[in-house]
């Protein structure tokens, strides 16, 4: 029974054994609990408002504009708030790419961001990064061809792993493709976040900086699969540097600012990358 085919056949037969009906008392208990459980309502503003007609959209935009201007006047009318040296207001990152129309800047982290003290240099993928103390680093042992989406269990990714978060990184030469062609093919294969579960961002991904270089945030606070931490989230970022695409993917108890604090430590060295199998 130890060759794969007979093992799978035996396993299928074995899986057939066992109950196939849910106990009524369990279903009834759940339905009873639901009687006193309210539903979560989605209060997030959708990226697109497809049911609005154009005049309605213009009216909505005008109202939002008036509210913003009014709010700004009210804010500026309170000089004491400027003189006490409070938190600086968030500013958008400078536009770093002609194709990136939305700039993303992380708000203050709601997750404790540890200091990035440990250096890691990837001779396989051609970059260096810093990560928190207490994490482990597992370098990639194979090249990434760019044909797969992020797969944290694959040996073609560098993995930096901590108790409640994991960052994986890979890079590949673009070959004859332009960055835009690569992005289009990637979205077609895997969705905008590389997985297809969190495609809520516009196609022109928000621009960010990765180690001072232009990058794109193509996965932004997406639901993870719970394998790194309970209710974990994931983020993904891409950078195109000197003919290579770099993919950074973090999953765990993290937020946007946490991810950015790691990306800020990146130094790219595409010439040092090793693309041998």
């Amino acid at each position, binding site marked *: *029974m130890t060759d794969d085919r007979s*093992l799978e056949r035996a*396993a*299928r037969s*074995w899986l057939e054994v*066992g109950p*196939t009906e849910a*106990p009524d008392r369990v279903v009834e208990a*759940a339905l009873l*609990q639901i009687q006193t459980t309210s539903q979560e309502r989605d209060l997030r503003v959708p990226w697109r408002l497809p049911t609005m007609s154009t005049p309605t959209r213009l009216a909505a935009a005008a109202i939002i504009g008036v509210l913003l201007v009014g709010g700004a006047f009210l804010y500026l009318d309170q000089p004491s708030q400027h003189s006490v040296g409070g938190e600086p207001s968030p500013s958008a990152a400078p536009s770093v790419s002609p194709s990136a129309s939305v700039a993303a800047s992380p708000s203050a982290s709601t997750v404790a961001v540890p200091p990035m003290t440990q250096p890691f240099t990837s001779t396989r993928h051609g970059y260096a990064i810093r990560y928190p103390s207490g994490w482990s680093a597992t370098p990639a042992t194979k090249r990434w061809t760019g044909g797969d989406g992020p797969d944290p269990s694959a040996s073609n990714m560098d993995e930096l792993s901590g108790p409640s978060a994991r960052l994986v990184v890979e890079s590949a030469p673009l070959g004859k493709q332009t960055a835009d062609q690569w992005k289009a093919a990637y979205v077609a294969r895997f969705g905008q976040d590389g997985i297809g579960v969190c495609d809520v961002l516009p196609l022109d991904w928000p621009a960010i900086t990765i180690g001072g270089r232009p990058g794109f945030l193509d996965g932004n606070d997406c639901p993870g699969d719970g394998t790194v931490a309970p209710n974990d989230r994931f983020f993904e970022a891409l950078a195109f540097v000197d003919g290579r695409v770099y993919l950074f993917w973090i999953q765990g108890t993290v937020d946007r600012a946490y991810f950015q604090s790691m990306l800020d430590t990146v130094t790219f060295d595409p010439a040092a990358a090793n693309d041998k199998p």
Partner: protein
Amino acid sequence: MDRDLVEQARNGDREAFAVLVHQVSDQLYAVAQRILRDPGLAEDALQNALVLAWRQLPHLREPARFEAWIHRILVHACYDESKRARPWTATIRAMSADGGSTPDASVAVADRDELERAFRHLPVDQRSVFVLHHYLGLPLVEIAEMLGIPAGTARSRLHYATRGLRDALVADAQPTIREGRLA
């Protein structure tokens, strides 16, 4: 799956949700039972998954995806339940005595026990992919989409599960072979 029912339930109709629950709960329970190998944990996973599905139903964007979506919730409930799994000795007894369907005569009792032991040693995320693939017959791409993981991850979890089972079975068989040679 009736899209109208899903829409009604999404809008807070508890009766509509109850109808949906009765349509999917048997399969959800069967899947949970096979992932967790413990009736008590499977019951808890099912109940938690149904309540969580009710709470989160307004977030479901595509009613047509209800069945895949609730399976995903169930698998995550199984992850949670597996953390408080009991020692497996009680499990074998429960599963063997609880045959709701006819066992295949081609799999001997000894093999079933070996499989049970080996399967129990796999991580729950690998067990989940293995059950969704070999019990529900879902293709890996569909499993990946269902669980919100890359297709490569689904593929590697299935690969490692199969390899883990095979290695455990080989290891299990070693003393017998040695004993046979000695005898």
